[in-house]
Structures are given as structure tokens and as C-alpha cells.
């Protein structure tokens, strides 16, 4: 085959989300993270002989809720199955999952990718119980069953994702939905949200799918993007360099994990044969049969979902679609934004300060606005001050830096306490500066009169610089216009 230049990646994501119920899926032990090992356990989730599973009704409700939120079909009949495999973190050496009759089928999710809205199809969602945790030490390993039995929903996408960027967008959209319906803590570092990717490539237009590689251990969306990109490149590289060999030999099914230090995918194990999990219906449990009334009850009482909120921001607040999308991605941020909106109606400005100004300042601290210590009311006050003209936009940036340095300090007080922040409204003072700038920049005046608007902005900037940002922009504008027109 001649070397084709148009490759296409085919990606499917399997997302496991821990449901934030009080107790576990089949065991009434507590569902909590971070406690001392083996303190949130009982006979069921430690696989004691004689123990029996009993289903948690809240886990069912949350699974159905999620299904409704992605407009999927809720199965009226679903059941559980045993999936057999041996591993120390499995208390029974079989997981209770849903194999062929899951609780949710189909569904779709809308996400924004590079400014465009895309619809991604979901294949199915099912309930299953989580395994415990294995902690590795040099000469032994320790097993902690606190997490064993925690309810999971596994969300399986169709293989309809074609780039790492799309994968991240899809993943973030799923996470947002889970967050908005309060089904999960969605914490990738703590493991309450885990994503595995199945990646293969093919020539554009090729029918059928080539062998796929599974990638695990991606503990953030940015790492996931890097990992998937790296893997796509690796596969293309392999196919290209061994073009004479049969396809299925070049890339054979295997599992890789993402190494964040080496910044590459590393082989974990080959999958020569499919694992034989010997699925069969769980005899200790009875099926779930849901009525239309129950399903409708859940669907009609869904809280506002990310997409709905985004649309609302566009129509009610006139936010540009991209900003609306970005600010609704994390419910806590969106709630923060609405909190600030109560005190200041400049939605666009608030949005910009949240998504750009403060986000930039917080980037390396590992924190978000939510845990920064800066309350929404302070953000609102900052923007209000700019709008009132109390401070200039330029000064506001300094005030923001001060707010970051002393979180919780009221910006109005910061401004009041710092004479450098007091804007200059004195026409006379500003006029002096304007005259100086005009005198030193006659070319710009000529350019502006010739139709170059940018030249005006330059002149404004020069005045602001001279005034160390304190001159009232309105007055500068008016004076410049006045003086230039008489030149």
C-alpha cells in the first residue's frame, strides 16, 4: 500500500464515576474517601462467607438521573451479573456488574470543541461495585477495602471521538453533568472520576476498526489529552514504518498507562486473548423493574443541566456562547458567577474576570476561585468599581493582585487604603498629560486623522502610562478627541 497521508483516530472513552451516596452499592458500610484503612467496611464488602448483597436504592436513582440527563433510554428491566477475576483488591474475586442488561442505553452529550458544538453519542451506562485499593511498598503490598463496594456508574461512549481535544471536551461535559446532578464528587485526583481511553487509528475512509490500545492512569484532562495525542502519533508512526507487515501485527491489543514524567504511554500488559470473565446472572440479587412513573418522576425533577444553563446565560445575560460554555463547565464556578451577579449585573465583565484575569493568577497555585478565599461578593465589588469609574481597568488589575495576596480583603477597602489607586479626575492634571503626549506623538495624530483608529488607542495608552494608570479613561478620551479635532 502506498503511504497514505490522511489518518483518522478512533477513540472510545470508558468513564467510571463513583456515586456520592452515603453507603455503598450492595453493602451498608460508609462510602467515604480518605479515612484510615479498613474502617469503612462490613461483612458484605470484605467478601466474608455468608454475606449477601442488598442494592442501594439511591444508587439506582442517581444512575437513572444521569441517564435522563443525557437523554438516554432508561431500561425498564435490568439485572446484575457476576464478573470473575482474581485480584487482592476484589473481596469476592468477582465483581457484581451489569453485563448484557444495563440500566441505561444510548444517550448523547453536547460539548464545545474549538468553538464548535459537537454531539457525542453514549453507548450505555451501567451500575457496578468498585474494588478496594492496593498500596504498594518495596517488599509487600497492603490492601484497604474502604473503597471496595462503592457504587460506580460506568459510562461507555460510542467510538465517535476523533481527537484528543474531542476526548477532553467529551470528558469534561460528562463530568459537568455528573456535577450538576450531584451524582459524584468527580475528583480525578482522588479517583472518584476515572477515565480509560481506547485508541486506534485508520486511514480516512477505511471501513472497520483496527486494533485498539487501552490507556489507563490518566489523572487529569490535560494529561489525558497529552496521552491520547502521544498514542495516536505512536500508532501512526508504527503503521507508517512497518507498512509492509499485516496491520493486526503492527499494533496488537494491549493496555498502556500514561507516565506523566516521561510524557509517554508505557506498555502495561499485552492482551493476547480476551479475558474470560465468565459472566452469568447474579443469583443473590433480583432484577430492577422500573415504571414509566418512576422514570418520569426523575426526569421531570432534574436540576438545571450544564447545557441548559449555558443557553440561559446566552439568552438572558447576552454572554457570548464560548464564555457561557466555559463558565458553566464547572458548577461551582458557575454558582460563584451567579453569586457575584446578584451584586453586579455586568455579566460579561464578571465572566472575563473569572475565566481570564483570576484564572490566570490562580494557575500556578493549584487552587481555583472557589478555594482561593476570595468571595464572590468581592469580585462583584471589583467589577462594580470599574463600571462606576471608581477605578480604572488598569488599576483594577493591581487591586486584583492585592486580593490574591490577601484573600478575603475587601477590594473597596484595598482601594480606599491605597492613594495610588485613586483615579485622577482632575481635568487640569490630565490635560497637562494629554498635551505632552500629543506634542511627542504628532505622527500618531496624523495617522489617526488619516483613518487609523489604532493610533488613537495608542495615544490613550500613552496618557494612561504617564498617569500610571490613574487617569479616568473617560476624561482622557474626551480630552484627546477635543484636542485632536482642533489640531
Amino acid at each position, binding site marked *: 500500500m502506498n503511504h497514505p497521508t490522511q489518518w483518522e483516530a478512533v477513540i472510545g472513552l470508558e468513564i467510571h464515576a463513583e456515586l456520592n451516596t452515603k453507603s455503598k452499592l450492595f453493602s451498608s458500610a460508609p462510602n467515604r474517601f480518605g479515612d484510615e484503612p479498613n474502617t469503612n467496611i462490613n461483612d458484605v464488602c470484605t467478601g466474608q*462467607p455468608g454475606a449477601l448483597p442488598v442494592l442501594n436504592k439511591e444508587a439506582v436513582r442517581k444512575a437513572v438521573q444521569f441517564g435522563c440527563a443525557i437523554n438516554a433510554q432508561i431500561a425498564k428491566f435490568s439485572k446484575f451479573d457476576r464478573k470473575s477475576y482474581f485480584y*487482592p483488591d476484589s*473481596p469476592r474475586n468477582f465483581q457484581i456488574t451489569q453485563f448484557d442488561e444495563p440500566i441505561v442505553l444510548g444517550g448523547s452529550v453536547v460539548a464545545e470543541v474549538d468553538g464548535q458544538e459537537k454531539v457525542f453519542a453514549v453507548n450505555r451506562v451501567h451500575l457496578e461495585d468498585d474494588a478496594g485499593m492496593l498500596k504498594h511498598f518495596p517488599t509487600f503490598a497492603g490492601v484497604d477495602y474502604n473503597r471496595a463496594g462503592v457504587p460506580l456508574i460506568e459510562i461507555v461512549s460510542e467510538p465517535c471521538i476523533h481527537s484528543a481535544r474531542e476526548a477532553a471536551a467529551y470528558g469534561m461535559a460528562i463530568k459537568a453533568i455528573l456535577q450538576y446532578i450531584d451524582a459524584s464528587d468527580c475528583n480525578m485526583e482522588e479517583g472518584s472520576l476515572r477515565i480509560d481511553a481506547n485508541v486506534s487509528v485508520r486511514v480516512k475512509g477505511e471501513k472497520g476498526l483496527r486494533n485498539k490500545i487501552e490507556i489507563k492512569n490518566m489523572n487529569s484532562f490535560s494529561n489525558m489529552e497529552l496521552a491520547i495525542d502521544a498514542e495516536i502519533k505512536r500508532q501512526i508512526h508504527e503503521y507508517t514504518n512497518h507498512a509492509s507487515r499485516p496491520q493486526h501485527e503492527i499494533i496488537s491489543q494491549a493496555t498502556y498507562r500514561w507516565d506523566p514524567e516521561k510524557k509517554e504511554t508505557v506498555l502495561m500488559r499485552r492482551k493476547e486473548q480476551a479475558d*474470560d470473565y*465468565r459472566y452469568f446472572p447474579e443469583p443473590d*440479587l433480583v432484577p430492577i423493574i422500573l415504571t414509566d412513573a418512576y422514570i418520569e418522576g426523575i426526569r421531570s425533577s432534574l436540576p438545571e443541566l450544564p447545557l441548559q444553563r449555558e443557553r440561559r446565560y446566552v439568552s438572558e445575560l447576552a454572554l457570548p456562547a464560548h464564555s457561557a460554555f466555559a463558565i458553566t463547565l464547572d458548577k461551582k464556578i458557575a454558582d460563584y458567577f451567579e453569586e457575584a451577579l446578584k451584586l453586579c449585573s455586568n455579566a460579561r465583565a464578571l465572566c472575563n474576570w473569572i475565566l481570564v484575569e483570576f484564572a490566570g493568577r490562580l494557575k500556578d497555585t493549584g487552587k481555583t476561585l472557589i478555594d482561593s478565599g476570595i468571595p464572590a461578593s468581592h469580585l462583584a465589588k471589583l467589577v462594580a468599581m470599574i463600571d462606576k469609574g471608581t477605578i480604572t481597568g488598569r488599576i483594577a488589575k493591581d487591586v486584583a493582585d492585592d486580593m490574591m495576596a490577601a484573600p478575603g480583603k475587601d477590594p473597596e477597602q484595598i482601594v480606599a487604603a491605597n492613594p495610588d489607586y485613586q483615579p485622577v479626575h482632575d481635568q487640569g492634571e490630565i490635560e497637562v498629560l494629554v498635551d505632552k503626549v500629543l506634542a511627542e506623538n504628532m505622527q500618531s495624530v496624523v495617522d489617526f486623522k488619516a483613518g487609523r483608529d489604532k493610533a488613537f488607542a495608542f495615544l490613550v495608552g500613552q496618557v494612561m502610562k504617564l498617569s500610571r494608570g490613574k487617569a479616568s479613561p473617560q476624561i482622557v478620551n474626551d480630552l484627546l478627541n477635543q484636542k485632536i479635532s482642533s489640531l
Partner: protein
Amino acid sequence: MHSLSAIEIRDKFLRGEISAVTIVETFLKRIEKYDHEVGAFLAVFNERAIQQAKKLDEKRKAGHKLGKLAGVPIAIKDNIHVKGELSTCASKFLTNYRAPFDATVTRLLEAEDAIIIGKTNLDEFAMGSSTENSALQKTRNPWNLKCTPGGSSGGSAAAVAARFCPLAFGSDTGGSVRLPASFCGIVGYKPTYGRVSRYGLVAFGSSLDQIGPFATTTADAALLMEVVGRHCEHDSTSLDAPQEDYLSSFNGDIKGMRIGVPWQFLEQLAEEPKQVFSAALEKLKSLGAEIVDVDLSILKYSIAVYYILATAEASTNLARFDGIRYGQRSARAKTLDEVYDFSKEEGYGPEVKRRILLGTYVLSAGYKDSYYKKAQQVRTLTIQQFKGIFQKCDLVALPTSPFTAFEIGAIKDPLQLYLEDIYTIAANLAGLPAVSIPEGFSRDGKPLGMQLIGPQKQDVRVLKAANAFEKVTDYHKALPELAK
């Protein structure tokens, strides 16, 4: 006193004629004297039982309300949990495993002031029909010490037959209560599936297992059913139905009851058991019951279905025994793989290994449809055939076993042992209530049992008919030598 029924003992205690301590001491003495010959018990709760008896005597003295089983000693099969005591399941794997919680039945029994006197021997993990598969000790039939007591609940059956206690509990997956009851000449009952909680029973075949009582009279068995036959919130397969009253329906009247007998299926039965069974049917007729011929041809496939489904479930139920969280971990294991492989190698006996491998096989890729799925389908047909039969009759009667207790070591071929369950398995497949009651003796003095099987949830009907038969026979009154 030891040959009295549980109800008689309880009533004597309640009337103040005898103290709980005396009752317990009497039975403990019998156990000490004779159990080295029988081998029914794996553990005897000498101290615990006396302590409980003392407390009970005080309770009665103080005039407190006393339970339905007050003062009655009861033995429990060693695959049913009594918190803090060993649950070995007669396996080398669990010789050091202490139950971290009480089985529901244990809790219910103690709430009614029963006194648990010890844990009894069984086939390892309840897999077997003779108790010979116990990895810990042999149990002998009190009627003939050279013979097996049947299995897998052989220890419990032998304990009651030898009058080491008037009551015991076993578990029945394919006949493991009824068969030993038949071999030991006592009453053994398997309730409707789900009637008694499985919480605290070490699972073998989850969709087949039921805990069931052994007693010397049907009234005693019924009393136990009144205590333990309840809905349990720890068991998702527990029947959500109100508790039933058995004893009040025991008026001996079964006039007009239609009893179906699958004569065609019994063609292969030997002369002697056939005669004894026919005589028992005549007794039922004399009570006004009508004997009807029914077609249960599907029953010939019971064993094949059972050995696919039970082993499939068991292979996963037993997977948890890996030496990691509990049980014996192999001392020679150095790596994680060896922990699994060697612990299981050393912990399991040959029958358990056989069944786990078979169960793994019938579920494995490529074979699941032809084995597991097929068996599930034939199970459906079994349920359907019974449903059809029960349109024409109220109960089905057949012998519990094709033969009497055989000599220990006489049957070495595993498949032949499996074939012993031919009459009992179907009731487990269809979840039906089934009792085995003494119907006579063979010429060489060994007991024979008759089974009565009812539709699902007709536990009262089954025990009532058994009681009516018992009222007009004496077989249940016979005692083996060491109980005389």
C-alpha cells in the same frame, strides 16, 4: 429425657419441672459418652451452652417472658455462622475462621431462647451426599455405625438421630437435609426457596440453597419453621411474605388431598424401597388422600442440570477463599500468585476441586451456551412441569432416596454419588418446599424416608400432610441402640 421431643422438653422447662442447666448437662453428657463413636460434632459449646442455660434459668425465675424454644438445645451445621465461633465448613481452608457475625437463623433461634449446643460435621463446603467429604472427621450413622449418615448435613442428622439434641439445622442445596434425614430415620425439611434467610450460610449454590430443620417429629420441625421462616432484609432473595402458623393447622385431616406419584420415574427403584414406599402411600390413602399418577419425566435430567448450575454458582461463591483476607494462607507461598494457587491447593479437598473446575468449565467462553444456558432452560422446563402437575394434585410423593444408608467408603465413583440425589434435586431446582419423613425400615434395620413436595409457598400444606402421616405411624418413635 433425651428421647423427648423439643416441644415436650420446652414445656417441661416452662412448667419448672426441669432446669435449663439440667437439660443441657444431660445432652452434653450424652455427647461426651457417645459422640466419639458417631462423630456428629466438630465443636461442642460446653461452656457457652451452660452459661446460656444458667441465664435462662434466672430469666424464668425472675418471671420474664420466655421464647418459643426456651431451654431447647439445638445443633447447627458448621457452614452456618454463630458469631465468634468457628465456621469451618469442614474444610482445611477454614479451620481458623471465626464467624464475624451471626446468621439470621442463629439470631432468631437465640431470640427465642434456644440453646446452641454445638456445630456439626458436613461434607466440605456442603458438597457431597454422605459427609465422607469432610476434611476434618468421619460421621457415622447412629443406626449402623459402619454406614454414612448421608450428606451433606450428616452431622446434624446424626446428632438428632442419636438424641444428642432434639433439634438441628442443616442446609439443603440438592437434598442435603432430606437425604440424611431419610438415612437417619428423622424428619428433615427444605423450605420454599427464600422462606428462610440465607444470610450467614456459607453459600454453595445460591439459587438452590435453603437452611432447613432436622427434628424427631413434624411438630418440632414446624415449630422451628415458625421461628426462622421470616423475611430477612439482609437477603435479597428472601421471600417477602408474612410469617406462617404451622402448628395450628396440624389437625391430621388430609381427606381429599390429591397426592401425585411419578410412577414412571420410579420404575428403576429396587423392590424393597418400592414396597415400603407403596405401603406408606396406602397409609396416606387410609387417611382419605387420593393417589394420582403424574408425569414428571423431566426429572431424569435433574442431576445434569444441578451439576451444571450448582457448580457454576459454587465456582464463583468459593472464589473468595484465597488465603488473602481470612482462612489458611499457604505457608510456602512467596509470591501473590502462589498465595492463590497454593492456598487453594492445600485448602480444598478433591470433591471441592472437582466441582470448582466443572463450574468454571460450564461458564467458560465457548461452552457457556451449551452448558450453563441449556441447564437454565431445562430448569425452566422443570418449573413448568411441576406447575402443570400441581394443577392435578396438591402434593407430590416419592421416596427420598433410591436406597438406604450405604457403608462408609463403599461408593468411590463421584458420579455414582451424584446419582443418589435423583429424587431430591428437583425440589431445589424449582424452589419447592419438600419434607422427608420416616416411612419404614429395610430388612437390615436401616431407615427409609418418604418425600412430600408442594408448590412454592405451600410450606404449611407439606408439613400438615407429613404430620397427618406421622400421627398414624410409629416409625418416628423408633430409636437407634445408642439412644435407647
